[in-house]
């Protein structure tokens, strides 16, 4: 019987590939956008404007403090009620990008705050503008602190992308649901789904811990 199941599983590979593709596309787009927006938000949040910083902080807390499943339902089911028509893919991208931006914003803020004030004062004293201070002095130093948790966050977000299967996007997780209806062996099917996620995420996990070690060592050399 197991052979029969394996046989029909192999027959499902086009569907599996589609699912993997969907997960990859969703993750790539939302991580790229989320990184850009997250850095922008982080820079603004660490900036001088208290209002802006407060508004961003409140939004980030709200998103971090609610389940992603609930957020994605709100985007997909509630927004159309308010007249904003969204297909599932767009809703998924918006939800994931928003989630990524918020988590990355907090990582970037922590990185910026870890740069000693003397560095900012030196840049100020040389007459560098706000943007030049960020670009030339603060961000390059913040990156040491930001990079390892950033890559770690990518892993979490790739896994979180599985939630979009709940609004009908055919990603890896949903492929699991579809296949299990044909091949009634949940353990086998979802073990394979899990393995597929792991194969995507594991290199990133390795990268994160290597970055942590390397940047940690580099940091020790710099006396401040």
């Amino acid at each position: 019987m197991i052979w029969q199941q394996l046989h029909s599983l192999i027959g499902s590979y086009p569907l599996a590939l589609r699912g993997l593709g969907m997960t990859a596309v969703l993750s790539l787009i939302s991580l790229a956008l989320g990184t850009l927006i997250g850095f922008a938000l982080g820079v603004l949040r660490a900036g001088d404007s208290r209002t802006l910083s407060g508004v961003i902080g409140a939004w980030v807390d709200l998103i971090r403090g609610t389940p992603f499943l609930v957020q994605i339902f709100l985007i997909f089911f509630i927004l159309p009620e308010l007249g904003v028509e969204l297909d599932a893919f767009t809703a998924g991208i918006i939800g994931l990008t928003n989630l990524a931006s918020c988590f990355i914003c907090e990582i970037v803020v922590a990185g910026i705050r870890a740069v000693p004030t003397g560095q900012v004062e030196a840049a100020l004293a040389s007459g560098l503008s706000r943007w030049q201070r960020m670009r030339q002095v603060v961000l390059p130093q913040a990156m040491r602190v930001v990079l390892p948790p950033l890559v770690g966050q990518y892993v979490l977000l790739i896994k979180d992308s599985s939630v979009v299967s709940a609004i009908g996007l055919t990603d890896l997780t949903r492929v699991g649901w579809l296949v299990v209806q044909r091949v009634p062996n949940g353990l086998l099917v979802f073990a394979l789904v899990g393995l597929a996620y792991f194969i995507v995420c594991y290199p990133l996990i390795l990268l994160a811990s290597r970055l942590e070690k390397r940047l940690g060592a580099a940091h020790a050399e710099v006396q401040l």
Partner: protein
Amino acid sequence: MIEFRGVNKWFGPLHVLKDITLSVEPREVVVVCGPSGSGKSTLIRCINGLETIKDGDLVVDGQHVSDRATNMTQLRTEIGFVFQQFNLYPHKTALENVTLAPIHVRKIPRAEAKSAGRELLAKVGLADKFDAYPAELSGGQQQRVAIARSLCMRPKIMLFDEPTSALDPEMISEVLDVMVAVAEESMTMMVVTHEMGFARKVAKRVVFIDAGAIVETGTPEEFFSHPRTERSRAFLSKILRH
């Protein structure tokens, strides 16, 4: 060049600068000294706006520092500032530290800025350290890079905030020598330091501050040999003890 007129500043309830009135002429070298916590660093940091003043007027190079209309970023390009902790950019080489502001703020062509930077680093005795990172340099070398970094902007004023206090004793003189050379090129300088040799050599005036107020002003000779107030005598006896 620098004029404090009745300047006051508070940190919360702490009155750190009390009615400071002081004027520094162009090309004048003024040394500021006083016990720790007396407000001397705060005083010098007000000049380039690293600290804001609460009350009174501070005019630097003809511009009112506390006036909101003053473009502080612009004014700061005319003022070099050397920190106690050097504050070199750790991710940039000595030469990149020196040329960063000339390239990005003064918009000097890269090649030109680099050759000016090399010249200045050579002048402070670091001709062999252009490509060294701050972590590879000793404290004295780092501070000399920091001085070159400020000079590379061709400032009208140089401010030094305890430039030798974080250094090992054997490195102090190499930094002071560079500062003497800068002073001898008739730069307007204000230096917070307890280095009396330096003060005697180049300072026109010594300003003694205690508890946020100017207690005594005089030539180095007058101040070190014949201090007029009890507080300056007490202070001098402490720094002269060894």
